[in-house]
């Protein structure tokens, strides 16, 4: 075999992605194992009736087996805090035995040497995403509202890195840690890990608006986009490419959610995406196969096109937009309308492009 058969991750992703869309294979899944957490982050979107019973070990196993049959390859275990579950080792081991490519999202504070060894030797995760909110305890712990969490999180990162497990810091930029961002980035460099940035704070799953007060301002977002140059070149398309991209977006599906991506909540609800709380079935009632292939809600989602959304259909910035159905529902109350968060982001990008390149987003 030559390199052609071992295509790079990007190009093979594209091939697999299009294939999974075409064949309706839920290639990627997130599994929210619990909404319980050992931190109480001030911006957290989880809001849930705790009296409901979370999936048992046996139920989680069954879901994993059903997902494997549907040919789901990538699985991200998230929460809440996954390491709170007493059966977490059994669950991760079962996922490994079923040949998933496993990624984890955690705050890391429950990861000790023994757990790090287990992850390295038995699970071999693709990567572990660890939330980091500050470069020092005063800032990080003020976000998590757990004293000592910064030290434990940083320690977990070190334990994992010592074992050569890939770790990426998930940095949520809030009004309270905005000034510290550069230091957080430096800390991740010092720790030898990559980082992901998110400043899109959303309301809580059941509608609570409290986290919104922590959003950074438009000016700060612009400063951020400007300074961090988050791929600004993609916002300066030439006319021909702009037209092609606009047409592609108009005719395209809303997003991957429900097309080759799904999410399972701790209560067995199946939703199109972890950020789109729009239950299309429950694994306690129906098989995943049945839900994935027969849900009317999913059929509706898959049929919808961006051009069906009135505001998006007329928008001249569509070529640049990655509209999110989840935030459209959370913020605007309608999964199938424009997402004001996406609109707001594009507005901020436009302001930056005008300032930096002295031109608009729409090519002349």
């Amino acid at each position, binding site marked *: *075999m*030559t390199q*052609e*058969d*071992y*295509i790079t*991750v990007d190009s*093979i*992703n594209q*091939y*697999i992605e299009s*294939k*999974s869309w075409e*064949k309706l*294979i839920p*290639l990627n899944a997130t599994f929210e194992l619990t909404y319980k957490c050992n931190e109480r982050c001030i911006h957290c979107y989880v809001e849930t009736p705790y009296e409901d019973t979370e999936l048992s070990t046996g139920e989680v196993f069954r879901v994993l087996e059903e997902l*494997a049959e549907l*040919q*789901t*390859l990538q699985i991200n275990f998230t929460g809440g805090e996954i390491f709170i579950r007493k059966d977490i080792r059994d669950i991760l081991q079962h996922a490994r035995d079923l*040949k*998933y*490519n*496993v990624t984890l999202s955690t705050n890391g504070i429950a990861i000790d040497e023994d757990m790090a060894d287990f992850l390295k030797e038995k699970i*071999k995760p*693709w*990567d572990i995403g660890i939330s980091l909110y500050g470069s020092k305890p005063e800032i990080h712990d003020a976000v998590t509202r757990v004293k000592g969490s910064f030290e434990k999180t940083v320690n977990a990162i070190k334990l994992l890195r010592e074992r050569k497990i*890939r770790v990426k810091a998930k940095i949520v930029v809030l009004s309270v840690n905005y000034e510290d961002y550069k230091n957080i980035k430096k800390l991740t460099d010092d720790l030898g890990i990559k980082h992901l940035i998110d400043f899109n704070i959303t309301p809580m799953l059941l509608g609570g608006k409290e986290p919104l007060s922590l959003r950074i301002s438009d000016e700060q977002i612009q400063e951020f986009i400007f300074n961090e140059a988050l791929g600004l070149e993609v916002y300066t398309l030439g006319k021909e490419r702009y037209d092609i991209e606009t047409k592609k977006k108009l005719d395209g599906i809303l997003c991957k959610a429900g097309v080759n991506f799904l999410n399972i909540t701790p209560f067995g609800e199946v939703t199109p995406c972890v950020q789109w709380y729009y239950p299309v079935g429950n694994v306690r009632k129906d098989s995943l196969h049945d839900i994935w292939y027969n849900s009317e809600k999913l059929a509706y989602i898959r049929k919808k096109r961006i051009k069906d959304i009135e505001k998006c259909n007329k928008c001249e910035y569509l070529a640049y937009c990655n509209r999110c159905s989840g935030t459209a529902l959370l913020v605007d109350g309608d999964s199938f309308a424009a997402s004001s968060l996406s609109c707001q982001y594009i507005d901020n990008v436009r302001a930056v492009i005008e300032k930096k390149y002295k031109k608009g987003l729409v090519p002349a």
Partner: protein
Amino acid sequence: MTVMQNRSNLANNEFTVPSHGLSDNEKDEMLKKIVMKNEDIAWRVLDGEVIIITPEDSVQHYINEVGSTIWGFADGKRTVQDIIDLMKEEYRENIEKNLVSPEDIENDVIIFLSELSSEEKKIISLENRE
């Protein structure tokens, strides 16, 4: 040799089949080995084609339909020879129509499995029967 060519080889005979480059002794040794999938890899079959992720380097590998048929036969019990026999059976019609020769199939399987078991890939291992 590529798996894409593999597919062509098995479909028609217009390609010159490259040799696997093994001596007779080496080949005889290899035919007796059991084909074991690496326990650590993640993999799925997407519409008849196998997608593999190797954890060490986090590379995604894609194997086409013919390679995927070979992959499907590798159940941790079968030897390289068993898999060659099964592939010949799978492509019996093509052999009968002279679209592919049994030698081509043997060659393709040996090259394919050698590649997957190479030091760089380590997607499978070839083990001695216990």
